């Protein structure tokens, strides 16, 4: 298939536009999505194409408009709700956790909630404590939801299309700092299945697992390690719930070592979950304990020195890989 290089935000836009052309039950709702063309210009031009019935500006009322979207999903529509960032979606957590995720169960299978909640997640520079939380593990803890967290334009488009077509509520996480990044995306239509991890770089000595913008750290570390003759296999989870641990397991059977890089806080994180699964399923294959690099066990501070100390980075990842290969000291 022919492809071209487009920005992350364009890939997301294409996914929404194509699905809205395909299915008139799909609409987009959120703060500044219409007239302002999106706080991060993801929805640029969509108001023009679809009109204000389907590209809807809301006031700053996250709980209110999320509730309305959840109700609309119960009653036959397929909303896409954009949050300016996931930090602000905390106000809607009641609707996502207490309503959307539980409707099907509570109604004995009668009433579902086909809805996509999407927006940028995690830190984005020196934005201080209230604008910097990475929420994948929090939402992944909720049965009834699916959670996707993407790292590049190709995956973003294919997975967002699948999310919009999915009949269950999907939490879809992007990143402010990646919207301008470019990548190859096919001309024609394609879908990427939810729940499938992707080996982004094959290798034999160690398995590195990551997702969202921390994939840059994992791939960067693999690059550094290659210079020293260490071959790291890098896996992008892409979907957090359901977690494709089988792909990780297959890799670990080959490399016998696992390091996870994520932006979550450490307690009850994706690495905690994955470490449990891998020690259970691959205990006899492991040549070293499963290790991880997370954000610090703290809110993110503003100062540049403290941002640097807070986030996972390539140097620390390289070092940890070496520790897990017993190459240090």
């Amino acid at each position, binding site marked *: 298939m022919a492809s071209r290089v487009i920005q992350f935000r364009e890939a997301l836009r294409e996914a929404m536009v194509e699905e809205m052309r395909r299915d008139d039950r799909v609409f987009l709702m959120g703060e500044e999505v219409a007239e302002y063309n999106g706080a991060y210009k993801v929805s640029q031009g969509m108001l023009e194409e679809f009109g204000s019935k389907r590209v809807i500006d809301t006031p*700053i009322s996250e709980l209110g408009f999320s509730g309305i979207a959840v109700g609309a999903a119960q009653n036959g529509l397929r909303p896409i709700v954009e949050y300016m960032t996931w930090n602000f979606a905390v106000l809607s957590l009641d609707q996502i956790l207490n309503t959307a995720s539980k409707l099907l169960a509570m109604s004995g299978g009668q009433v579902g909630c086909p809805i996509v909640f999407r927006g940028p997640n995690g830190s984005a520079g*020196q934005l*201080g404590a209230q604008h910097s939380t990475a929420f994948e593990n929090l939402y992944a803890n909720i049965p009834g939801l699916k959670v996707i967290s993407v790292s590049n334009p190709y995956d973003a488009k294919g997975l967002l299309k699948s999310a919009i077509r999915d009949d269950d509520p999907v939490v879809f996480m992007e990143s402010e700092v990646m919207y301008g990044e470019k990548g190859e995306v096919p001309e024609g239509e394609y879908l990427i299945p939810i729940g499938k991890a992707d080996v982004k770089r094959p290798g034999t000595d160690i398995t590195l697992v990551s997702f969202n913008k921390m994939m840059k750290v994992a791939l960067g570390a693999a690059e550094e390690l290659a210079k020293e003759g260490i071959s790291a296999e890098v896996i992008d989870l892409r979907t957090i719930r359901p977690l494709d641990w089988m792909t990780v397991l297959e890799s670990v059977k080959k490399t016998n070592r696992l390091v996870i890089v994520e932006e979550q806080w450490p307690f009850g994180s994706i690495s905690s979950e994955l470490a449990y699964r891998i020690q259970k399923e691959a205990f006899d294959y492991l040549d070293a304990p499963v290790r991880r*690099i997370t954000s*610090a*066990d*703290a809110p993110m501070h503003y*100062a540049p020195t403290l941002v640097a100390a807070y986030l996972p980075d390539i140097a620390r990842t390289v070092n940890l890989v070496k520790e897990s290969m017993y190459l240090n000291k």
Partner: protein
Amino acid sequence: MFVSTKTKDATRFTKETYLYWYELMLLLRRFEEKAGQLYGMQKIRGFCHLYIGQEAIAAGCMTATRPEDPFITAYRDHGLAIAKGISAKSCMAELFGKATGCSKGKGGSMHFFGHKERFFGGHGIVGGQIGPGAGLAFAEQYKGTDNVSLTFFGDGAARQGVIHETFNLAMLWKLPVVFICENNYYAMGTSVERTSNVIDIYKLADGYEMPGDSVDGMSPEAVHESVARAVKRAREGGGPTLLEIKTYRYKGHSMSDPAKYRTKEEVEEYKERDPIDYTLGKLQNEFQVSEEEIEKINERVKHEVEEAVQFAEESPFPDASELLKDIYVQKDYPFIMD
């Protein structure tokens, strides 16, 4: 409940009051202009929201309250923080992310705090400070003081659900709080008209039978009078008031907003009513304050801002060891270190 705040006799404020207003507003203006410049030079990072145009609110609120009265606001917090007495030096250092900043460089532009100055932040989630603002008042009532909480929020924040629960509780318990909606007509790119059927935000008070008032926010006198009235009621046990103070931000929402959603003419219209120019005119024409006296103030302000920048420049960044400090009060909290 509409109560007109038109000052019947605007000349009844003293010369000293106008001098104080002028110097304070000029300081806020120059501080923000400098912050804008330094943001362009990447000395200041993250989100940065300037207070330029809204200074009369800070001025009027200061003369209508006492130092013990707690203030709390959103992320557009530089002006109120400085007004409340946090030094320009420590505010500028905070913008730089330096250890000498008013939040030790940990908060940044959106999270200025000054416990000593009774300034309770600097909050980044729109509407998030409205409940806590009433909570400050609850504590004053509980402790038996007659202090009054001034709780600031934007026109955009007025559309968050929390406002209704907080108004109801504040009225139910007659909390000593003045809710101040700084209506600058826009929440990012969204004008007030596009957010509700109720354009007069002060009318939201009606649903709770709370006194509500619309105020000219370009006039320090009008702000003072309406806030003084509301504060008096709260001090005497009369409970909360909602003041919708109509103002304007001359700059974009934050440093990254080109503000294409409004016209140049609209901005100019407000600049013609600039509160600093107005106060200066008052001083010169009604109080015969001399050119030299004005120049002295201007110099003082200029110096204060320059000194603040130098202080921020020369201060150190927080050490990486600060990462796990100020997370818990408990000194030996067992963090997950891996």
